[in-house]
Structures are given as C-alpha cells and as structure tokens.
C-alpha cells in the first residue's frame, strides 16, 4: 500500500512494503519514505493490541501507546498540516494556478456567490469568508471560468486551503 503525504510544495510517498501477521495480537510492518523518487527513510514497526489499546514499537522492547483513529485526511506535525491520501495520488494538487483562491487565514465560509462553470471577471466577489470576527469578500484575481469549488457554506477552514479554482480565459 502506498500513502501520499502532501505538505505545501513537499510531497512524500510512504510505501508500506511488508505486512506480516505474527500472532493474533502482533503485526509487523515495514515502511519506507520517498521524496523525489529518492529513499530517505526506512523502518520496521510492530503493532500490538493490549487491553483494547494499540501500542507501537521499533524494537519489540520499548512500546508506545498510539491513539486509535480512523484513516485521517490530514495529519498534523507541530505547525504543518499534511494532506494524506491512501492508495491514490490526487490529480492537480501539486500545481497552484494563478486563479486559485486560497484562504489567507483560518475562517468560515459564510456565502458562496458563484458556481462551477460561471464566467467571472477580475475583482468580482466570489465568496464571503468570516475570519477574526469579520466578513471578508474574496475576489477573483483574474478573468476566467470557475473550474471547481472545493468548499461548502458553513465550512470551517484552515489557513492556506484551496477554496475555488479558476481557469483563465484564453485570449
């Protein structure tokens, strides 16, 4: 199984290269991390279930509790938000177009004033974002056509989230 971890411009691939069930409560995994097709890290991890809790270890001697969680869409590392995809690489994630509308600060979508396929002009208000207790009008940077809207009204957003993709009009 392959995982794709995407953080800003950095893309990491974590390959699960080995899974071995050692007993009814012990599994061995081997992970390796690739960055730009180069192997940067490789490690064997053991997971053991004990009293309904999960514990992980690299050497089967020192065990650490790991939080139970379902497959998250995001992983957080200190100040980094890492998008996580299991088994597939989403298309069009790497390149950020000039017409893309990203959040500049955390906020909540109050209203979306456009829909996919709409032709919009530069400076047109496309979305109202409530942030720091103020309503902010988010305007289009270019003349173009709305390619995709990734957010819903009422949704809470992190900083740097892609809200709307706009394809530029061909001159």
């Amino acid at each position: 199984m392959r995982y794709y971890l995407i953080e800003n411009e950095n893309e990491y691939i974590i390959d699960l290269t080995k899974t071995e069930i050692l007993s009814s409560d012990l599994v061995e995994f081997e992970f390796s991390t690739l960055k730009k097709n180069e192997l940067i890290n490789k490690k064997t991890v053991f997971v053991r279930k004990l009293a309904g809790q999960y514990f992980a270890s690299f050497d089967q001697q020192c065990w650490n509790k790991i939080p139970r969680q379902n497959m998250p869409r995001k992983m957080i590392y200190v100040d980094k938000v890492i998008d996580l995809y299991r088994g597939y690489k989403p298309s069009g994630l790497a390149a950020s177009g000039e017409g893309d509308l990203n959040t500049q600060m955390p906020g909540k979508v109050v209203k979306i004033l456009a829909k996919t396929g709409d032709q919009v002009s530069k400076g047109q208000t496309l979305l109202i974002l409530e942030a720091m207790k103020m309503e902010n009008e988010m305007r289009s940077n270019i003349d173009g056509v709305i390619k995709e809207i990734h957010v819903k009204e009422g949704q809470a957003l992190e900083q740097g989230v892609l809200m709307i993709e706009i394809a530029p009009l061909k001159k």
Partner: protein
Amino acid sequence: MTKRILIANRGEIASRIAKAINELEFVAIGFWTESESQARHLEFCNEWIKLVGVTHAETYLNIEQIVRLAKEHKVDAVHPGYGFLSENADFAEALNKAGIIFIGPHSDAIRVMGDKATSKMLAKKAGIPVVPGSSKAVESVEEAIRIAEEIKYPVLLKAVAGGGGRGMRACLNEQEIKDQFAALQRESMAAFGNGDLLVEKLIINPRHIEVQILADKNGNIYHFFERECSIQRRHQKIIEEAPSPFIGDDEELRQKICSTAVDLAKVVKYDSAGTVEFIMAEDKSFYFLEMNTRIQVEHPITEEITGIDLIVCMIQSAIGGDLHIPNQEFIKRSGHAIECRICAEDPLTMLPAPGKVYGFETSFPQGTRFDNCLYRGLEVTPDFDPMVGKLVTKGINRYVAVRKMRAALKGLFIEGLKTNISLHQVIMENENFKNGSYSTNFIIVENPQAKINTEIDFLKFYKELAGIEARNIGL
C-alpha cells in the same frame, strides 16, 4: 430541595459545572445548538435544551431567549460559566426579574467592577493601591510632563479607548513625552475615534498576580490565596500557577495582597466567587488592576492546592446553602499546581487553527487533571475560543508539579488539530521558567516558539500509519 440549574455556556466549563450540579443531586440542564449538536457537556447533563440561532448574538449572548427558555423549563438558577453573559449585569437583572437566581454576584457588583475607571476609583477610595497616574484624560503635553514628574519616570502614555496592547507608548523622559504625545493622540483618534490620553506609571517586568475570593450571602468573604498568570501571549494567559513563585516564601506579602483583595470585595459587598487581579512590580509593590466577577478559566489550580470545589461553593452561595467553611483560618494550602491551556492553534504563530479531532488519547502521571471538551470527531470552528482543554498537574512542590506537567504533556495525544502542546513543552524546559524568574514579557523575551523542533519525524507517521493499518486488518 432539588433545584433545577441551567448552564448558559458550552465547552469544558459546561461539563465542569454539570458535574458539580450532579454532585449536589440537583438537575443539570445544558444547552446545545444546531452547529454543535454533539456537545460533549450534554453527557453530564440530565436535560438538554436547544438554543435556536447561528451566531453567538442569537444563542449564548441572547438574554431574551435564555431567560425565556429558563422560565419555560422551570429553572431555579442559571450558571453563566465564564465569557458570554457571565459578567453582564443586565442578564443577572433579567433573571432576577423572572424569579430565577443568577449564580454569581449581585448585579451592582458586576456593574461597578465591569467598568475599569469606576472600579479603579472605588479601589482608590478604599485605600487600595492602584497604578499611579492621571485619573482623567490629560489636556496637554505640559500636563503630561507634570504628572510624569510627580509619579516619576518611566511612564506609559495610554489611549483612554485603547486596549489589548494597542494605543500605548512607554516614555523614559520628558523628551520622549514631547516626541510621542501628538503622534499617539492622532493614532488613537484614527484607531478608536477618541484621542484622549492618560499618563500612568510604567511597571517594568510586571507580574500578574490574582487572588481568588469566595463569599456567601451572609457577608462572609474568604480568600483562597493567589495565582500567578504571568505567561501570556497577546495579553491572554496560557500558563498559570498557584501559589505565585514570585511571592514565594514571603508569607507577609501573601497575607497583605490576599487581605487587600478581601477588603476590596467587602467594599462592593461581594457575595459569590470572584477574582481580584493585581500587577506586581519588581520591588514587590502591587497595584489593583481589575476584579473579575465570575469563575475564571484558571480556577482549577486554586482548587488543587486548597481542596475547595469553587463551582459547587458558587452554586451553594447563590442558593443560600452552606459552604462548610467555618472561618478564614480553616482554609489551608499545600503543594503547587500548574495549568497549561491547551489551545487549537499553531504553536509557532500562536494563531487559532481550526480542525477536526481524529484521535484523542491520554496517558497521564498521578496528580493530573484535564478539564476538556475533546472527543473524536469534534470540529473546532473559528466561532469559538480555541481553548479545548486545561491540563493541570499538582505536586508536593513546584519542581514536582513541573516534572508532572512535562510527563502529562508527553501523554496527551490529540490528532487532527494543531495544538500548542509543543510550545508548552519548550516552556517547561526553559531555565527561567523552571527558576520561576519570569514576567508578563516572557514570551516576547524568551521567544520559546523558536525552540520548537519542526523537522518532520517520519517515525511518528510510521507508528500512526501502522496503527491504522493494524486496525484495517482487524487486529
């Protein structure tokens, strides 16, 4: 007789209050809203009421709706928690008019203490030290200089309408007042629509020290010693401790500041739980800052060192019950407690970072308390305060409490949210913090966020992914 008590709040404090109501064998009634139907505090409430509306103004700040619902549900008393309507005298009066008890002080106390200028004047009249300075706006540069000479430099030029660290300038001498006066006047006019300035003595390296007060309806006012809340960012506290390391073993000073707080509470005939805040200078002189007429976020550390249950006592006080406190001497303290506020925020920029909790697990040392509103699936939105929990440890002394806090932080796993746990970890390792030598400028001076290791540790990901895979294959 069984009372029906409504909690007009949300988050961790709502759970805390509900538990206290359960203990008293009263009926705990909690609110929920459309945007927060999974609120964790409902778990501890016997009855659930829906608050209609989307914004805060329509829900938790809506006096009309809350009073109407309280009447409809035959509520005997309302606990406001902190924030929202907790220091709103109109709310207290509206409840009283409807024959419902407001769990807090009488509305006059809220009104008087809610106004900074009035409370300062009142304190001054009662002989309680306040930060020396002009009592009203100064007319001219000359007047500002005259006052500055009277109270001695350095001084602070301060916009009457300013706040939250804005509209303030430090002046070390006459020349600096001359240079800054007109500029700050213009700036305040532009920012707040009011160009009036005050002159105040500048306290260098101040410490923020507050005294916990608890009073009943019979005129008995007790103090529960002090807390120190000097570690702040953007003028908001993030770490608090009790007792104050700055006061330390100086029992005379401790007695003095605590009895000063009681004296002030007596002036307004205070009759509930409250906090008197002081600012303490390097020479240990202290000045009255303000009084908070509500339960405070950091009340658990006082509970830990004195054994009191402030929320239960606050309810008992309001309904005229027995606090089980014979006299001030009965109240003793032991050990040391520290609280770290766990916030959903970026630890480097300290700005709120909303998100969704994917995993939440704890593995704490003995002597840990974690008041929180976390659960798997909780969505932290920009609407609410980013504080999701309060991690409190208690030790036999400060050294042990800090050691326990380091262990507790290591044993707190919150997945899916950016949190300030790593910032707290750095602060707990900071030499000046460990020695207790810090002021309210700590974050600015020490810049602890620069020491947070942000390099990605793939081993952490392997462990988490291994856990997910293990669950997938049915382990």
